[in-house]
């Protein structure tokens, strides 16, 4: 049976309709508006869910012509469902949370109005439509970041955000122009077909470079990550939406353009290096952040870097899995960040942390690799061979699991604790591989396979595995060196994010006094 239109295409309209109502009730306690806003978000969620079912039932659909194309396939339907779900969660949260705010109605309107282009973005079938969505998101999110316009910090953060975000839009526009020059088309389907056909023309190479640049700016990659770590100036639901729904749009862009990006080995290499660097940089800086939301923001920088790394390795389905998993986790982490006081108190109660020594860490890594060998062999036997990139990524992740094992192997850890951490490690490894399989099955057919590894790819793989391994070992041994006087300076620089943000502030006048009104 042919479907006329995936319902998820209409979801943004529902949101915009209710957002328009907010214009009439911008103020405090705007009657039924908060409830209506949640209902609209819930309706959008239902439509996204039905859209996914439609796609499952009938396969990919595109609607529209020329540059105005919407596409529904497994990837976009998943993303639409994700965005709509996060949207419902934050709108439901905001319904109580914003109660009594002077601009309560405006907030609901702005949130819905921001959600709509995000939903449009993930279902866009062409670059111009994506640019339109991106630019709209930028304009509206800026208004949300300025929800407390009297706060100078908010104004600074908004300025920084707009600068980087719209620079990304400019890069995207450039990419669109170059794609047009190369292939005379800017819709994803054509670009994908052309990219699969053979070597890229020079203009397309340029377009891919611009795409990568845009994605890097929009995912807060090193060194212009500063805008993301300063946007806690808006109410918590905005942070949740931003970190779970918006910041990964750069990754969505790359995944939609996967075939074109993958056709440029240089772009892939750049993604691996930039992504890997951002991931490790963000993760290390996060270690020294004492504010719960600040630490979460740095964690997002790192996780987005990791996602770019996955893109660069050609593990597109896994990058999409990472977007989904990270969004769900980060939305929850932000919305529940009020529990941090209790969480910290409960950390201190059960006594000192057992510190693993060098030999425990060595054993932990050996065990982790063994565990990896067993689980990976099992999965390969069950579902077939894996690319070297996928195996390398698995290795990087298993280094992380080694840290969990190491905590249980510390001399001071009782046997029961060892057992529990071992069980958790095993469960984590299994869960990771299962989710990977699901991701590959669900989205793999839409996306290119990882490229055959040549010398460049191998060099990057080795570099990535080694650097993640080194940081993982350093992390596991952390308590043994973190308080050594020799690392005092290192901690200062790390806590400051290596001053990149301060340098950016200096460049754009972020240290200047701001005038109120």
């Amino acid at each position: 049976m042919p479907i006329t239109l995936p319902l998820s295409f209409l979801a943004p309209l529902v949101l915009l309709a209710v957002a328009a109502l907010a214009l009439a009730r911008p103020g405090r306690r705007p009657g039924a508006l908060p409830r209506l806003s949640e209902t609209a978000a819930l309706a959008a969620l239902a439509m996204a869910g039905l859209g996914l079912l439609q796609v499952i039932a009938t396969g990919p659909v595109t609607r529209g012509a020329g540059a105005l194309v919407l596409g529904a396939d497994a990837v976009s339907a998943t993303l639409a469902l994700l965005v709509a779900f996060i949207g419902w969660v934050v709108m439901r949260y905001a319904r109580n949370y914003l109660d009594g705010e002077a601009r309560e109605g405006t907030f609901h309107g702005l949130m819905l109005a921001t959600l709509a282009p995000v939903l449009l973005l993930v279902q866009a079938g062409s670059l111009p439509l994506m640019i339109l969505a991106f630019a709209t998101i930028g304009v509206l999110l800026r208004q949300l970041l300025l929800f407390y316009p009297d706060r100078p910090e908010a104004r600074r953060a908004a300025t920084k955000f707009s600068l980087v975000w719209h620079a990304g839009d400019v890069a995207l526009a450039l990419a669109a122009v170059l794609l047009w020059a190369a292939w005379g088309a800017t819709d994803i389907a054509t670009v994908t077909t052309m990219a699969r056909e053979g070597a890229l023309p020079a203009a397309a190479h340029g377009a891919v470079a611009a795409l990568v640049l845009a994605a890097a700016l929009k995912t807060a990659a090193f060194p212009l990550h500063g805008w993301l770590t300063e946007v806690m100036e808006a109410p918590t639901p905005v942070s949740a939406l931003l970190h779970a729904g918006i910041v990964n749009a750069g990754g969505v862009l790359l995944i939609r353009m996967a075939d074109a990006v993958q056709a440029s080995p240089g772009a892939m290499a750049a993604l691996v290096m930039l992504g890997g660097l951002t991931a490790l940089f963000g993760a290390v800086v996060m270690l020294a952040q004492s504010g719960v939301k600040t630490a979460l923001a740095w964690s997002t920088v790192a996780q987005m870097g990791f996602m770019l790394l996955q893109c660069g390795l050609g593990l597109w389905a896994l990058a999409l899995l990472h977007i989904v998993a990270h969004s769900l986790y980060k939305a929850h982490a932000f919305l529940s960040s009020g529990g941090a006081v209790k969480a910290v108190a409960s950390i201190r109660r059960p006594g000192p942390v057992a510190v693993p020594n060098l030999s425990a860490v060595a054993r932990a890594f050996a065990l982790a690799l063994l565990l990896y060998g067993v689980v990976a062999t099992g999965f390969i036997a069950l579902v077939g061979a894996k690319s070297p990139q996928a195996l390398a990524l698995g290795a990087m992740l298993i280094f992380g699991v080694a840290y969990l094992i190491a905590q249980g192997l510390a001399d001071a850890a009782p046997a029961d604790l060892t057992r529990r951490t071992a069980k958790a490690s095993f469960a984590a490894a299994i869960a990771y591989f299962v989710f990977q399989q699901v991701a590959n099955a669900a989205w793999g057919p839409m996306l290119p396979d990882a490229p055959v590894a040549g010398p460049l790819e191998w060099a990057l793989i080795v570099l990535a595995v080694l650097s993640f391994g080194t940081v993982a070992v350093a992390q596991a041994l952390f308590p043994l060196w973190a308080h050594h006087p020799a690392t005092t300076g290192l901690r200062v620089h790390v806590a400051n994010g290596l001053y990149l943000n301060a340098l950016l502030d200096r460049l754009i006048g972020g240290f200047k006094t701001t005038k109120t009104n």
Partner: protein
Amino acid sequence: MFLKHSQIAPARISGLLDAAEAACRAIPPAFPLEATVAVNPVLGHVGDDLATASARLARVAGVVLTRKRAEYAAAMAAGRITDEDLADALFCSTSPMKPIDLGTLKAKAQADAPAPQALPTVADLAAQATGTDWPEIIARTFGLWAAGQFDRGQALWTPAPGQNAYTAWQGWASRDLTPEIAGLKGFCAHVAGAPDLAERAILRASEHLGLHDDAAQSVYHRLLMDLGGWAQHGRWLLWQAELDGETDNTLAAMLAIRLVWEEALLAHVPGVAKAWAEAVGQHAAPVAPSPDMVIDAILQDAADRAHQRRLAATLASAQPVAGADRPALQAAFCIDVRSEVFRRALEAQDPGIATIGFAGFFGLALGHRNHGSDVVEAHLPVLLKPALNSCAAAPEKADFEARIAARATRAWGRFRQAAVSSFAFVEAAGPMYGAKLVADSLGLKKNKATSPAPKLSDELSVEARAQLAAAILTGMGITKGHAPLVLLLGHGSGVVNNPHESAYHCGACGGHTGEVSARLLAALLNDPATRAALPAHGIDVPADTLFLAGLHDTASDEIALYPDHAAPEHAEAVKQAKAWMSRAGRIARTERAARLPGAQAATLAERATGWAEPRPEWGLAGCAAFIAAPRGQSAGADLGGRAFLHSYDWTTDQGFATLETILTAPVVVASWISLQYYGSTVAPQVFGGGNKLIHNVTGGIGVVEGNGGRLRTGLPWQAVHDGEKAAHEPLRLSVLVEAPEEAILGVLKKHPDLAKLFDNGWLHLFALKDGKMTARYRPGSGFEAAGFAQAA
């Protein structure tokens, strides 16, 4: 002499350091949010009256301690403040600057007072001169350092433990390039070259800043206030150290740090020297209120009087309730104002129900170690030191298992947080958070874990136990004729996802719930050996009396009883009590829901446990009176959940020892609470916890707004304001005591620090006679007739 500063004469050294210490002591302590309690924000200014304290704070922090004129004017226009209140307040003002007559006062109330302006710091002046926002840069860089330095477990990478704050900061700031990037060339070298002791750094910077003894204290105070809650955290460290008979110089270190900044900025922008010298000159002038501040203080006094007038009328019209000889049920509640609503509702259920008000730690000064925990937590008013140790009574195996579970959770948490492993965490566990989001959004999670009963870990002899029990029962005023069932009800708030949760718990239990205290007291009073020894102390507990502990959830007005004692013969009484309490809960919820925006009585509990709820309950907002009297005298009055109720019968108080305890302990604690609500309402930018919507929990100890910067202490705006109007009417607490006037005056005479609170108007004092407000305390002249209409 250890100092080599030839410019500073030894006499000046002690002058400056004394000034530094005095400035440090003017800062109120802020207890970490893990177990926070209300603190009087003007603790350092109780020697001043309201107008003078306003003047002082205006100069050092840019705030005054009174409401906006428009609010007083609105209350006058609505008739809540009458001409009589204004005239009385005007008459009683001792300021030579007061308006000449009522007409002038009323005219003044219609026009806004000029906004207070803090004297500028060098950083402020430098910002004006250079356009670089130095105050903000200081707040940001200091905040980042302090967040790490005082972190209790949020970040995995914290500074090396055990270093004193000043040394740690020198290590930090001599490497932190941010100020230099912002334009302060050579700041790292300046810090590295600064004296290596906080005291010496204070002296050197004071010299360079041209501070003389007259100005020093005020300048220091200004700089400490500039650090916001961080200074209050430092003051808390000093508070804790002094409780243990030690000392702590973190706060002095903070002052030194801030002075080093001023020193560097003055050298960086020498052009502001003249303006700075002027500011120092203004600091040197004695603190004196402006005429506007005097007017505001009079208007505030009128508002206090208006409340007292209504309170007197309420009490005067109340019918005293005669208690049954032997009640069917006695229930002891914390004096907390939230108990009043529930007590009134419970008493209405049956004439055989008697309620008692007593501080919620029930007189047990506990240091409690929780189930599966190494940390001893103080469950008592913060003015006191723990005298008894307790722990969970669970078997060792259970304790071990709880510990292992907690440690495994912790290891998982570190796995989530650490570099590299955080990626593995997201890939392996991220998708599961979808379910968590649904559960939390819909409020599906029901977390009602019961903790094991506590026990005293100290071995107390029977005699010691009996003495303790007797002292507590005497303090509570129940020495004979106990009901067959006596409930000991602590309180706590079942809120979730709220950094300020402990602020809703029991202040008398040090920001914990009253569960442990109530359960321990019940165990003590049910112990047969202790009971047998009680008659020797003049306490006569009937053999059939059972003490049962419970917890009043102030967010849901539900009461959970702890069945720690097998008592089949009391099953019927317990069942009856539960039925009464359940009905009383419904009434109390109806009453409270009317005040909470968007709340309905039936869904109050669900509302409170929603993870997105900024106003789960009003806490003690509205608190305005403290009544120490037999409950029977106030039982007929609807006090609207605004009064602390302490049961007290002076006729049985030998030597007025109990009176002395009440005035020096619960009244002082109540004054801290009332003044915290007061401060957070009238001066939220300095004494309030800021906007909950942008709170960023930092170091596990407190919150900052947005990205970082100053720690925010006190109550969040949402805790005292419903968005349209303040939910807390800022009033100074009226303390009403049913006791002979001479006895009350005797206690004041014995405790000059307490007397200061009344003499300088931070508390009002009334003597009750048969439950009516008959006499008002006037500083200097003792009690005089209150002049309230006494007829019902």
